[in-house]
């Protein structure tokens, strides 16, 4: 061999050639990461449109107390989707708050009778010892439409109160400023790019770790378990290559598959997010999905080390498996552990801390989130790289030692525990 890596390169090249001809592997490593998000997203958009279209068609009924002032009724009727119906006599409240349980029972009864049931009740009443009227809105928080009506009615009442206050102030010769003490306004200072980064950072890290796992799982199965199942492992071992060269070539293949899956998925997400946002978000909101070069490099660095660790762990776990089913049984827990651990960073308030950086896979998900969100700090990033590099190195070292054990190809009763014990002892 001309160099110690030449044999590994030959193995890698052969693995790539074979992989590109394997429909299952092409589906898992190339097509799935490319089209998962567009298909999921387009499906989601269709469902969203159907639901929102259907919602728009539904008339929202509000039971309204007879004592409600005419001005309030007029104001509420400006909402075309809202239909006001006098509340049943049992719910007419004069000097006490309405019975919410009674409202629910009557609403359910209307629903059971096939009538269009109200989603909320507006009750106008005054306690005998009170000097002002009270308004109670009974609504159902488990129904979006009911919550919307509660919000709309509340807004309408507040607006009307301000108008009436202003009129009364003017009628007694006061300036409106004497009764309206301040106006509250808020403005979102986040740029469209920052908004896009925030949204991406919520969902993307988990999917990226999932894709890294996906790429390594199927390629590790094929290159280790498939080799044994086809009966080609023994042939390969009888070639002049050292076992470490064979393992290095296979390791490079699994890592490469994992990285390809990751990169294609990242590309797909950004392209799809940019495209989909035009369909659902009004231009006034402004969302932009772009990743800067530093964020991309940081993510690719983390992804590379994560891919190396997953590749080494999966190859190690796959070594004792005699067939695909046994291989899947041992590799799936690793895949699930890596994917589920990344969920831990999905909450918006989670920052990228040193503690997180010490936990494998969680740290890469947190790094990706911070990189996308523009909050990447150097210390936890370095810790993440160090932890993942150490994990990859140790896993690969153990896998290489274990692979050099005699029975790794021939022992039908091999287990990971037995391999680790004997491989490390040797």
């Amino acid at each position, binding site marked *: 061999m001309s160099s110690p890596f030449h044999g590994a390169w030959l193995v890698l090249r052969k693995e790539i050639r074979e992989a590109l001809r*394997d429909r299952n592997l092409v589906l898992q490593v190339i097509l799935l990461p490319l089209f998962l998000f567009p298909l999921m997203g387009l499906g989601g958009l269709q469902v969203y449109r159907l639901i929102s279209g259907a919602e728009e068609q539904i008339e929202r009924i509000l039971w309204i107390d007879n004592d409600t002032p005419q001005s309030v009724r007029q104001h509420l009727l400006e909402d075309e989707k809202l239909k006001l119906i006098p509340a049943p006599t049992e719910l007419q409240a004069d000097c006490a708050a309405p019975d919410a349980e009674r409202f629910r029972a009557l609403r359910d009864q209307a629903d059971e009778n096939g009538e269009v049931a109200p989603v909320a009740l507006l009750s106008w009443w005054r306690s005998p010892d009170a000097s002002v009227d009270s308004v109670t809105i009974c609504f159902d928080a488990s129904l979006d439409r009911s919550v919307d009506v509660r919000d709309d009615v509340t807004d309408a009442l507040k607006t009307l109160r301000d108008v009436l206050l202003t009129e009364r102030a003017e009628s007694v010769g006061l300036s409106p400023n004497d009764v309206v003490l301040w106006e509250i306004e808020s403005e979102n200072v986040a740029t469209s790019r920052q908004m896009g980064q925030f949204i991406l950072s919520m969902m993307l890290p988990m999917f990226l770790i999932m894709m890294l796992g996906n790429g390594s799982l199927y390629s590790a199965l094929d290159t280790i378990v498939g080799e044994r199942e086809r009966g080609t492992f023994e042939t390969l071992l009888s070639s002049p290559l050292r076992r470490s060269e064979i393992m290095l070539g296979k390791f490079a293949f699994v890592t490469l598959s994992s990285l390809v899956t990751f990169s294609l998925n990242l590309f797909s997400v950004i392209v799809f997010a940019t495209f989909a946002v035009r369909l659902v978000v009004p231009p006034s909101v402004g969302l932009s999905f772009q990743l800067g070069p530093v964020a991309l490099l940081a993510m690719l660095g983390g992804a590379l080390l994560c891919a190396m660790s997953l590749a080494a762990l999966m190859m190690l776990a796959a070594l004792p498996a005699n067939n695909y089913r046994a291989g899947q049984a041992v590799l799936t827990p690793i895949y699930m552990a890596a994917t589920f651990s990344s969920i831990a960073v999905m909450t918006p308030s989670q920052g990228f801390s040193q503690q997180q950086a010490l936990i494998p896979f969680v740290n890469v998900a947190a790094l990706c989130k911070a990189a996308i969100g523009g909050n990447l700090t150097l210390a936890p990033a370095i810790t993440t790289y160090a932890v993942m590099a150490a994990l990859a190195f140790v896993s690969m070292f153990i896998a290489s030692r274990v692979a050099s054990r005699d029975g790794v190809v021939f022992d039908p009763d091999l287990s990971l525990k037995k391999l680790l014990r004997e491989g490390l002892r040797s």
Partner: protein
Amino acid sequence: MSEVRIRTESLTKMYPGAEEDLCAVDRVSFECHAGEVFGLLGLNGAGKTTTLRMLSTALTPTSGTAEICGFDVANSSEDVRRSIGFLSGTTGLYHRLTAREMVSYFGELHGLGGSDLKNRVDEVLSYFGADEYANTRCEKLSTGMKQKVNIARTVVHNPPVLILDEPTSGLDVLAASATVDFVQSYRDEGKCVLFSTHIMSEAERLCDRIGIIHEGQLRACGTLEDLREITGQHYLEDVFRHFAVGEPA
């Protein structure tokens, strides 16, 4: 006597067991020479495959030594593997590679490259009549075609020693016959062939010398005539039973 290509001395392989260790190969010693087919004859589980795997360096001997072309299997394993072509009955092919790619891959693993590789691949494929389906993926080949590709893969680097572990196992009559023909022709080229089988007719037809292995021990070793003389039996099956089971015919 011609050059010694394979030499084993007290070659032993123990497998650790739950209660006691299992001795798969017990102090086996023999020699194979250039231009010779040496047959290792034994029942299933007798230790033939373990012996051959130690010679191919896939397994490490527990004790004893083995040399191939002067290289020790334990200390010069890479040189040993460069010197051998190894084929077993369970050896498979990479289904998604074509016959040519399969043979080329193993040629490259053995250090061939460029025009040497191309010429040698063409030569061996042509020798086995595999050039017609050289660009067909291995998964689409018949059993006989696969066996030819497998043998071509085994000898692409023109090794001085060929180790064949029950190479006709599971083959139909024609494919098995082609394999036997090839072994004869390879021996005629002055190469050393170590051949394990439990099919007596094959051993009788092919082997210049025979070693009978039973329960991990080499019970007898010599030419068929030598063994006939020792046992007083004519048929190899009876000779084998004499050494292996101790039963007279």
